[in-house]
């Protein structure tokens, strides 16, 4: 794990607050983001990965947030060219090399819009991430969400 990850300031446990996310690089999409990297207003950078979603509409999504070194954002911008990037297979390796710097999961976030209203945020330990499958109970959500596994993987 990278040792230069800054102490977290962007996220706090809570409900219904405005997203601290300022910019998003989207690497995965299915009617909405599934994975990528985000930068908060205070410069904190996180990899995000979809953990669960509302099964009928996929509108409400639960993401895991993994801290990254602040400098990783500029590294990714240099590769991807900026927000609005559309995934290109030939850039997979350099992108993977950067996002590999992500640390252990710190937060679980439930939202319909990563840059809009955040419905629920809860701190999480890596061992909990491996164990939890009922995200409704973990986050206290009234809407049903279904676990999709650690990462969104479509088999060929």
């Amino acid at each position: 794990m990278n040792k230069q990850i800054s102490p977290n300031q962007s996220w706090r446990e809570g409900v219904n607050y405005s997203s601290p996310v300022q910019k998003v690089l989207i690497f995965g999409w299915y009617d909405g983001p599934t994975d990528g990297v985000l930068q908060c207003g205070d410069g904190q950078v996180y990899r995000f990965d979809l953990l669960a979603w509302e099964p009928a509409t996929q509108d409400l999504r639960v993401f895991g947030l993994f801290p990254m070194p602040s400098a990783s954002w500029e590294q990714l911008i240099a590769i991807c060219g900026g927000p609005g990037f559309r995934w290109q297979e030939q850039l997979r390796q350099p992108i993977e090399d950067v996002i590999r710097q992500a640390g252990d999961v710190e937060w679980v976030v439930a939202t319909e819009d990563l840059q809009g209203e955040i419905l629920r945020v809860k701190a999480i330990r890596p061992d909990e991430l491996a164990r939890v499958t009922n995200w409704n109970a973990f986050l206290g959500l009234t809407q049903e969400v279904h676990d999709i596994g650690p990462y969104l993987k479509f088999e060929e």
Partner: protein
Amino acid sequence: MAGEPEILKRLGMSRESVVRLSRKAAEAEAALGIHGVSVTAGTPRGPASTAPRPNVEQHFCVHNTSTRADPLHRTIELPKPITQQAADLFNQLFGRS
């Protein structure tokens, strides 16, 4: 198998409204630059309705929009604005009538 048409799978089995399709297409346009909705030619993570790609392409443009997790992600481009007729056709193609 060679010669078999690509099968597009869209999560969910229920009919989709003009409002929902319009919202999802607008989100995709903002993020991906294509006014459309997601399907996969791979294995979907959940119940999905299906349509052969050639059938869909008779009416809508299908873009190969691979993602980090799904190299077989596709985006079906929908007209802007999405009319009731277009939504009905989309649902019909995926057997959601």
